[in-house]
C-alpha cells in the first residue's frame, strides 16, 4: 500500500470486525501450533515473524480496535530494523518524525544536549516518533497480507488449562464461547494480562509516588524535531515537562504533577489548557487531542516461560515511560522468541531452546528496568537528599562537563547484548569493538550487485547467516542439520568478486562493515535469525561453525 493511501486511514477509528471461525463449530477443540493472545505491537510482531518463517498462527484479541490515544510514541533504531525484517519498517519511518537529538533545560537555561546517532552509515535513525495506532495499523496491514495468520477480534480468553504438551483455552466471543488447543501460547496481552491472572502468576516491582499528565495537542509550532525536557521550568515550577513531536502536527507534552494531584480533576480541559498555554505562550493556538493522567511502575515476572505459555512485552515486564523502553523492549521480546519458537515447532531444535528466550529477555528486562528506574529516581526524587543531588547535578551541569553526564531525563532504548547467553560461542580469537557474541548486528552501507543497499537488509531472511569477509569463498560449508544457514561473502570495495564464487556477495562500499566488525580477510561471523552475533572467528573452520550453530540452537 502506498503512503498517500495509508495517510487517509484513521487507525483509531478503525473497527475490526468479529468473524465466526470454523473452530467455533468444530465438535472438539481444534489444535493449533501457536496461539498468540493480544494484537498489540508485540503480538502482531510475533505473529508476522512466525508467519514469515512458515508457522501458522492464531492471533486472538479481546477488542475490535487498535490503540486509543498515541500511547507509545518513540520507536528506537533496533525496533525499526526489526520492522524492516517484518516488511513494514519503511512505512514506519516514512510516516514517523525522525529525531536523533535531545535537549535538557534547568529552569530557564539549556544545560545539556545529546545526539543519539552521532555517526553516519546507518539505514535507520536513532528514533522515530509515531503514534502507537499507526505502528499497530502498519503491522496489522502486514499481518493481513500473510495467509498463515488467522486474526480473531472480540475473542477474549476466559480460561486456560496448562498441560504437558500444550494449552487448552476457553475463548468468549459475541456469539458465545468455544475451546481451542495450542501447542504453544504466547501471552502478549499487556500489563493487565488476562493470561497471567488466569494462571495466578504475578509481575512484581515498585510504583513511583508521582503522577503525570499526558496532553497530546494539535498545533502549528516552531519547535524542532527534538526531545525537549525541562526540570523546574518557570511555566511549571518544581516539576518536569517533556515536549516531543509526533506526525500530523501533534505534540506530546508530559507534565509532572506530583503525588498529591487529583487524577480526575487534572484531566479536565479547564485544568489542562492553562498548563499547555503556559508552556507555549499566550499567542499559540492549539487543540487537545488526547489527555491522560497516569502513575507508573517498574515490575516484571520472575520467569517469562511457564510450561507451554510464553509471556512477551508488558505482560512480562513494565517500565516507566522515560527511556522509551516499553514497546521497544516488547517488540525485541517478540523477535527473540519468534525464531526459537519456529525452530521448536518445526522440530528442528529442542524445546530447551526456549529457556534461552527466558534467560536473554529477563536479562534485557532487567537492563530496561534498571535504566528506567534510574531515570525515574532522577525525575521523581524519593527523598530530600535525592532532590538535593538532582538539583546539584543540574546546577553544575552548565559549567561542569561531568555533571552533564549525571543529568538523567531518560536513558533511551538500546538493544540488549546477550553477553552471558548459553547460545553464544565464546571468542577463541582476539577481536576489538562491540560485535561480541550476543551483540545485535550493526548496520553499514554495502553494494549489492552494484546497487547501494544496507547490510542488515541482506540478513533479513529469517535463518542463520554465515558472514565471511574475504576475496574467496570458504573451502567447504558446514552441514546444518536442518537449521537454515545462508552464507554471505563480503568483499572490499574495488575488488571484482569472481563470478564463480557461488555465494551471495556484498561489497563493503566504504569499508565501514569491516571496521564495525573488526574484520580482516578470513574473519567469519555466525549471525542468528534475530541478527545477534552467535560466534566469530578469524578463519572459517566448518567444524567450528557446525558446533556453534548447534550451540546457538540449543543443541550444544
Amino acid at each position, binding site marked *: 500500500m502506498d503512503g498517500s493511501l495509508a495517510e487517509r486511514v484513521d487507525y483509531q477509528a478503525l473497527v475490526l470486525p468479529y468473524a465466526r471461525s470454523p473452530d467455533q463449530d468444530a465438535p472438539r477443540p481444534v489444535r493449533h501450533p501457536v496461539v498468540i493472545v493480544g494484537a498489540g505491537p508485540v503480538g502482531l510482531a510475533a505473529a508476522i515473524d512466525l508467519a514469515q518463517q512458515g508457522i501458522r498462527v492464531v492471533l486472538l484479541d479481546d477488542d475490535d480496535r487498535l490503540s486509543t490515544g498515541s500511547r507509545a510514541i518513540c520507536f528506537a533504531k533496533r525496533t525499526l530494523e526489526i520492522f524492516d525484517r517484518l516488511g513494514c519498517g519503511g512505512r514506519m519511518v516514512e510516516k514517523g518524525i525522525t529525531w536523533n537529538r535531545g535537549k535538557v533545560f534547568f529552569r530557564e537555561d539549556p544545560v545539556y544536549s545529546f545526539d543519539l546517532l552521532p555517526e553516519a552509515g546507518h539505514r535507520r535513525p536513532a528514533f522515530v516518533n509515531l503514534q502507537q495506532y499507526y505502528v499497530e495499523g502498519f503491522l496489522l496491514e502486514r499481518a493481513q497480507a500473510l495467509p498463515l495468520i488467522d486474526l480473531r477480534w472480540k475473542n477474549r480468553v476466559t480460561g486456560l488449562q496448562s498441560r504437558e504438551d500444550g494449552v487448552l483455552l476457553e475463548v468468549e466471543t459475541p456469539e458465545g464461547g468455544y475451546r481451542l488447543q495450542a501447542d504453544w501460547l504466547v501471552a502478549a496481552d499487556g500489563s493487565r494480562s488476562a493470561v497471567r491472572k488466569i494462571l495466578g502468576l504475578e509481575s512484581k516491582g515498585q510504583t513511583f509516588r508521582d503522577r503525570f499528565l499526558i496532553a497530546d495537542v494539535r498545533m502549528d509550532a516552531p519547535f524542532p524535531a527534538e526531545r525537549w525536557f525541562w526540570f523546574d521550568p518557570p511555566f511549571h515550577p518544581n516539576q518536569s515537562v517533556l515536549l516531543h513531536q509526533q506526525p500530523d502536527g501533534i505534540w506530546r507534552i508530559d507534565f509532572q504533577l506530583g503525588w498529591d494531584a487529583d487524577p480526575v480533576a487534572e484531566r479536565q480541559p479547564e485544568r489542562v489548557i492553562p498548563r499547555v498555554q503556559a508552556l507555549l505562550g499566550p499567542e499559540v493556538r492549539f487543540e487537545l487531542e488526547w489527555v491522560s493522567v497516569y502513575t507508573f511502575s*517498574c515490575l516484571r515476572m520472575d520467569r517469562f516461560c511457564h510450561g507451554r505459555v510464553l509471556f512477551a512485552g508488558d505482560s512480562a515486564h513494565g517500565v516507566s515511560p522515560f527511556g522509551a523502553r516499553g514497546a521497544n523492549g516488547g517488540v525485541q521480546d517478540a523477535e527473540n522468541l519468534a525464531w526459537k519458537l519456529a525452530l521448536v515447532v518445526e522440530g528442528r531444535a529442542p524445546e530447551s531452546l526456549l529457556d534461552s528466550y527466558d534467560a536473554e529477555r529477563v536479562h534485557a528486562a532487567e537492563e530496561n528496568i534498571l535504566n528506567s528506574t534510574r531515570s525515574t529516581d532522577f525525575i521523581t526524587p524519593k527523598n530530600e*537528599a535525592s532532590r538535593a543531588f538532582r538539583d546539584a547535578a543540574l546546577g553544575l551541569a552548565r559549567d*561542569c562537563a561531568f*555533571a552533564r553526564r549525571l543529568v538523567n531525563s531518560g536513558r533511551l532504548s538500546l538493544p540488549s547484548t546477550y553477553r552471558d547467553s548459553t547460545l553464544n560461542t565464546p571468542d577463541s580469537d582476539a577481536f576489538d569493538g562491540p560485535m561480541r557474541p550476543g551483540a545485535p548486528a550493526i548496520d553499514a552501507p554495502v553494494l549489492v550487485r552494484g546497487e547501494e543497499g544496507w547490510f542488515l537488509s541482506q540478513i533479513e531472511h529469517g535463518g542463520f547467516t554465515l558472514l565471511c569477509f574475504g576475496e574467496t569463498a570458504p573451502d567447504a560449508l558446514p552441514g546444518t542439520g536442518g537449521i537454515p544457514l545462508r552464507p554471505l561473502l563480503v568483499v572490499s570495495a574495488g575488488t571484482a568478486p569472481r563470478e564463480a564464487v557461488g555465494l551471495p556477495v556484498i561489497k563493503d562500499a566504504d569499508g565501514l562493515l569491516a571496521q564495525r566488525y573488526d574484520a580482516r580477510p578470513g574473519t567469519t561471523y555466525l549471525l542468528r535469525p534475530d541478527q545477534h552475533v552467535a560466534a566469530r572467528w578469524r578463519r572459517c573452520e566448518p567444524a567450528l561453525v557446525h558446533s556453534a550453530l548447534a550451540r546457538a540452537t540449543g543443541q550444544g
Partner: protein
Amino acid sequence: MLNTELNIAAPDDFYEALVALHRDLTPEQNQLVNARLILLLANHIGDATVLRQAMARSREGINPVGQDATLRATA
C-alpha cells in the same frame, strides 16, 4: 583503597572552611551545597572502589528510620 589516615595538610583550616561554607544558609541551602560538594569531590576522586568504600563508611552505624516514596507494585 579509602584512605582514613590524615591526608589534609592543615586540618583545622580545612574544617573551618567547611563550616564557613555553610554560614547563614537555610537547611535546604546547606543540603544543596553539600550535594554539590559531594558531586565535585566524587568526580575528582573518580575511583569507583574508593567512592563505594566512602559511601559504605559514611552510612555505617546508621539505622534507617525514614521512608522513601515508593510503593510495592504487584500486577
